[in-house]
């Protein structure tokens, strides 16, 4: 059977690609090795708790009046009415362990600036400039996307001059240049861990777009867990007669004369297509799925040049007390030793790091668990392969429990609460869990590290030159838009549109 396109992996990126193409009348085959769609965008039950597997908050969604890119995408895909989301009224709440600081930031630009002024007097001017700049960056990125790799230099120069100035710089460099007070810089940078890269590495534009979206569009969550988002995409794909196979792993991509011809699955079926969209890592594709002799030199070089991004441990807790009883009033708690992102990034190359993001689901979604209970997630990232270095088959269970214990203790200390005594259900996901579930190298959850030439802009600017094998596209966290819900969804559409063009069938959107 020959398909117009084959999508490997039903994560966020893969699902959007598959649906976008199917909606254009293409005949798509979606192959997924797990038994549910979504990749890490899913949920699971333990006892009386349905745990969200990954989504803390999504940016670029917004509401009716401030509709973000992802919301527009869902509209185009015809699934907006299939998902129930909720906007949050806070951005972040950060607590530092070593310096005993605590800051709570609201949504809305004015509120945000005002609150910052309270914490850091004389920060208003630089904050205003910052948000102006964010707005321009956002519009400039839209323009870059619309121009499909061929921006008009003049338009860039005249309409987006400030964007052009900052585009090649790191978050830290630009905040310095804006003469933002150090303390305000530090607070503003709190979200760095969401992009898995500290202020000196992460591109200003990338960070600015995310923070801006959280402040302006507000963060959103999916009330029925991210599984509902994944399911909405999948059900629509199926309704349009898309073909899917679960529990089916792709073990080879067939390449002939520099072009993809199809895939071979673990049950030894061959499916033919001239388009393959990979929701998996280039490491897997070039290192295992395509026979080495057929991997172009450039593809090898690119893959070898990249650094794997964040690995993570996530502790899922079902507690038998309400958030009020526990004394937890915020939704998200960023807990670091200090606000110095570079220093914390270094700390997080060690296993004993206890920097974490705590999320109290009930504070955004009060009916997510039975009355009198709380769902709490503690997520901690590692920026090295330290977990792999230490885990063995003999110490794995113990290691898991020890890490969880450490994280819970830190959360207790930072929030001055008692969590241990309320644990009714506990599940711990480690890099091993993610490696097993997603097949990603070393179990990374954020794709490649966003640093230097592997930041957002260089990736996007060069994505049209990096199709080293004809008909092969990458989407998802390892793709050109990097990791995160909104990015991976949007990467799915981008690749689908590119593929449509290749099929000689450019669509209107």
């Amino acid at each position, binding site marked *: 059977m020959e398909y117009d396109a084959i999508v490997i992996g039903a994560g966020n990126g893969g699902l959007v690609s598959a649906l976008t193409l199917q909606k254009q009348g293409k005949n798509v085959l979606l192959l997924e090795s797990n*038994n*549910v769609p979504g990749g890490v965008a899913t949920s699971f039950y333990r006892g*009386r708790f*349905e745990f969200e597997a990954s989504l803390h908050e999504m940016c670029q969604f917004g509401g009716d009046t401030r509709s973000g890119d992802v919301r527009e995408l869902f509209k185009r895909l015809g699934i907006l009415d299939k998902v129930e989301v909720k906007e949050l009224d806070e951005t972040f709440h950060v607590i530092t362990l070593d310096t005993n600081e605590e800051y709570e930031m609201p949504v809305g630009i004015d509120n945000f600036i005002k609150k910052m002024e309270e914490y850091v007097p004389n920060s208003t001017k630089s904050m205003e400039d910052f948000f*102006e700049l964010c707005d321009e960056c956002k519009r400039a990125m839209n323009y870059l996307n619309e121009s499909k790799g061929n921006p008009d230099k003049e338009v860039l*120069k005249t309409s987006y*001059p*400030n964007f*052009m*100035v*900052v585009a*090649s710089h790191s978050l830290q*460099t*630009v905040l310095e*240049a*804006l003469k933002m007070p150090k303390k305000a810089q530090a607070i503003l940078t709190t979200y760095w861990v969401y992009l898995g890269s500290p202020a000196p590495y992460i591109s200003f534009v990338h960070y600015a777009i995310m923070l801006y979206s959280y402040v302006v569009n507000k963060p959103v969550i999916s009330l*029925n*867990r991210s*599984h*509902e988002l994944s*399911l909405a995409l999948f*059900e629509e794909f199926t309704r349009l007669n898309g*073909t899917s196979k*679960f*529990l089916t792993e792709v073990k080879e991509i067939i390449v002939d004369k520099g072009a993809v011809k199809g895939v071979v699955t673990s049950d030894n079926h061959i499916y033919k297509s001239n388009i393959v969209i990979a929701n998996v890592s*280039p490491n*897997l594709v070039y*290192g*295992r799925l395509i026979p*080495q002799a057929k991997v172009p030199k450039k593809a*090898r*070089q*690119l893959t*070898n*040049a990249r650094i794997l991004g964040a690995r993570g441990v996530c502790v899922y807790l079902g507690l038998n007390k309400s958030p009020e009883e526990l004394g937890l009033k915020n939704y998200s708690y960023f807990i670091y030793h200090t606000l110095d992102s570079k220093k914390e990034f270094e700390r997080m190359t060690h296993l004993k790091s206890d920097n974490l993001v705590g999320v109290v689901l009930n504070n955004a979604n009060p009916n997510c668990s039975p009355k009198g209970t709380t769902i709490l997630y503690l997520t901690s990232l590692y920026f090295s*392969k330290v977990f*792999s*270095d230490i*885990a063995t*088959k*003999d110490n*794995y*269970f113990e290691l898991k*429990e020890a890490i969880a214990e450490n994280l*819970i203790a830190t959360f207790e200390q930072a929030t001055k609460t008692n969590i*241990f005594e309320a644990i*009714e259900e*506990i*599940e711990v996901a480690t*890099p*091993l*869990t993610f490696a097993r579930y997603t*097949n990603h*190298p*070393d*179990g990374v959850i954020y794709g490649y590290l966003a640093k*230097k*030439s*592997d930041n957002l802009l260089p990736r996007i*600017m060069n994505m049209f030159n990096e199709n080293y094998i004809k008909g092969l596209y990458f989407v998802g966290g390892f793709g050109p838009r990097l990791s995160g819900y909104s990015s991976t969804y949007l990467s799915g559409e981008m690749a689908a549109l590119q593929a449509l063009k290749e099929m000689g069938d450019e669509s209107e959107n």
Partner: protein
Amino acid sequence: MKVKIKISNIKAIDMLKFKKLGEEREKAIETSYTDKVVYSYPINELAKVLHPKSMKVMVTNIIKETNDTKTIVFKRLNNEPFPPFRAGQYVVLDAKIKGVSYKRSYSISSSPKNLDQISITVRAVRDGIVSNYLVKELTLNTDMVLEGPFGTFTYNSLRDKKQILALVGGSGITPIMSLARAIYDKVENCDLTILYGEKTYADILFKDELDKICRECENVRVKYILSDEKSSIYDTGYISKEQISEYELGSYSYFVCGPVHFYHHLDKIFQELDIPNKYIRHDIYKECEVGLHHNKYTLTVLTDNKEIDIPCYEDEPILKALENASIKAPSKCLVGVCGFCRSKLIKGKVKTDYTYVRGSDINNDYLHPCVSYPLSDVTIKLCK
């Protein structure tokens, strides 16, 4: 709209640098090494060791425990050790009986210390196809397939009390036996008291070994309770509220394993004693494999782009109808908990248990066929 923002310092190098972003990336690629891409990561390999997709095994020993119960010992055909497991976990056994493949889950009864071989202990239940085959027909050296280990009926030091009171009905002793052995072997570090209810003295499983463990290990105790036999040595009757209250309330986690009516019985007691959910762990319980075969309907199965009609019965889970018709369907726990059999109801009415079905799955007509019973002709779509 043009805004003048004072962005000092970096202004001079702006435009050029922007244009160069792409070129710099190009350069970084060109100067990177050309070696082949090696996809080899210890943690991905370890994941496969800990969670093999399935394991080919051979029956190396069959031990008669009582008249109707046998322990079956397996080793892996590739001679690798079994993946480490926690006492209380189960495996899924794929048994081929008269050409039909049946999957059943059984708790591991052996100690997690010895991974060269693992064992399950099976009691033949009335009309049970697989259990009777395993107890009465299975022979040494038979090759079989196991999946797992799976399950969360395990001791967790962060959640549970250090003292466990295990409440066991009949063959529910198997995961608790594994725990007792694990404590004895110093693999698990908790204190275990077992209230073990059996029908008669002759039905008690592992009695000699349990008594030995209790004698030699101060952290394990057992009390036998017989329901169908008068005895002057052992307590008789059903495990009661009074017996449970003898163990200081608030100091124990309760691990319950036994038949369905046993859970109902204990749930009532826990409620009366006001014991919080947190301290009660249930093993996944196993329905008896009996069917009364009345009210026959047609089950239409959509799978692999085919549409297959098979018979199904109102008092038989849909998964069983699939099994009888030799239609391959994903499954693990068989009791509605793991979600592995998750399928979509396309048409028809069913009686089903939604306890462990994701909220959005329910909204989109998904169900778990292992706990779904037809109330009309039914069409389902398998997820595979």
